[in-house]
């Protein structure tokens, strides 16, 4: 699997805040350990959902499990932040909404890394990289790959 190597790519970010995951979402936050992003999927209606919960928000099935995804996606929206909300955030950086290839609307907020902020745009193809957060948790961040899609 080519995606395994992504676990070794550390993003050029400062210290990221660590979340306090609920038991239902730990697997999402831990999935960077082997470099494979895992999202939650309903085994009844087969649709992916985010954020993870112990029930499918569409069909109310309790049969929801985590499964690996490709880690590939597209920038659905973005903002280039210039304001140092925390002291180390001196340089502009891009916050994105990434839409994963597995399902239209399967999205979450993330950070674009190892990519010139001038290159960020809606439709940009991206791939997951992981940044350790400590305590076995990882932030799934994204880096640009290839050409833009619209």
């Amino acid at each position, binding site marked *: 699997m080519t995606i395994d190597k992504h676990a070794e790519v550390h993003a050029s970010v400062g210290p990221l805040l660590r979340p306090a995951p609920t038991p239902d979402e730990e697997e999402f936050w831990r999935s960077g350990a082997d470099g494979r992003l895992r999202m939650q999927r309903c085994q009844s209606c087969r649709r992916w959902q985010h954020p993870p919960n112990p029930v499918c928000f569409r069909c109310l099935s309790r049969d929801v499990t985590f499964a690996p995804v490709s880690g590939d996606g597209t920038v659905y929206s973005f903002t280039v932040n210039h304001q140092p*909300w925390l002291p180390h955030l001196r340089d502009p950086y891009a916050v994105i909404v990434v839409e994963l290839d597995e399902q239209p609307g399967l999205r979450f*907020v993330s950070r674009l890394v190892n990519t010139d902020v001038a290159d960020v745009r809606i439709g940009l193809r991206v791939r997951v990289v992981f940044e350790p957060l400590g305590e076995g948790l990882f932030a799934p961040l994204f880096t640009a790959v290839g050409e833009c899609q619209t």
Partner: protein
Amino acid sequence: MTRPERQAVIRGFGSSRVGRRLPVSEMALTADACLAALADAGLQRDEIDGLATFPGGGFDTPGLAGPGADEVHAALGLQTNWKYGGPEGGQLGGFFSACLAAATGLARHVLVYRTVSEASAQGAAGRAGALAGAADAAVSGFRRWLAPFDAHSPANWIALYAQRHMHEFGTTREHLGTIAVNNRRNAAGNPNAVYRTPITLEDYFDARMITTPFGMLDCDVPCDGSVAFVVSHIDTADDGPHPAIGVESIGWAMRHRPLWDQWADMTEMAAWDAAAHLWERSDLRPEDVDQVQLYDGFSFLPLVWLEALRFCGKGEAGRFLESGKRVALDGTLPLNTGGGQLSAGRLHGCGLLYEACVQLRDQGGDRQAGRPDTVAVGVGGGPTAGAALLVRR
């Protein structure tokens, strides 16, 4: 359909001073606003039997919440039959709840207040000061899906919506700047506004960038202040010294998952659900509305509300502004006549509700926009929203 909100009126309203880092406590601001509202309603303290606020006590975000309902209850020596303080009904949730309590007889006269002291709380360090210490603890609550990705501020979260709207519909920063310039022009006529010196589009573009597409002048101003209302049963509407304000309808619907990053179409927001609900509950239509008071925590949000409330088609709000002509005080749909949160100060939507009352009583002075009979109020951004149609009785 039963429409209990029509059995409620806003009988009185009041405001404290609003400003940057006022040298008084949150409770002092609250008392100023509440006592002003009582006097305006022509009611004695002992006639108040209900109390409501948003978001209520127990918040640790500095300056955001103001004193909780229990504290105000105690400070004012109230005796209530009904009381409510809570965050999850949105910024107008306290007001809506008060309307329902008055309409159903749980209480006859409900005092509703909203107090902030964000300017003082943030201190000289600004927003970063409010976040200081955040890095020491793991992030819980909804922010755990945002802060680990350095999306620390509502400015970031709303910018993600704005950028998508610009991408799909060609909305521009000039459209956003038109809102900022309009609201500042209106603030010049509001003695209680924080910023009253007019700005130009050039000033807007010169302001430093915060998070694209938002610069400094796209972001509202944290302030210290309080506004209060007395919501009464309609049977008592004519008993006060001033005309009471009628409630035509409220919009409180939430038909999507209320999550910042999970809105299916990020050119829309919760505003669309609240606005749809508002019209479902009203005999009026958008063309019946004389002016609008729309949440402008960020310049982009009034555009969302204009579309959600169907004053224009989806994606058309930027052009609908007609470079500001349509929404000016002398335009066909005046917007944020008191300066909005961008210039008058961020009273979290309740300042806009207050301004609607001022206008419906023709008390706007230099900023009075005609003689409105119907004012639409739309409050909230992202996954929170509430709307109201207030009318001259």
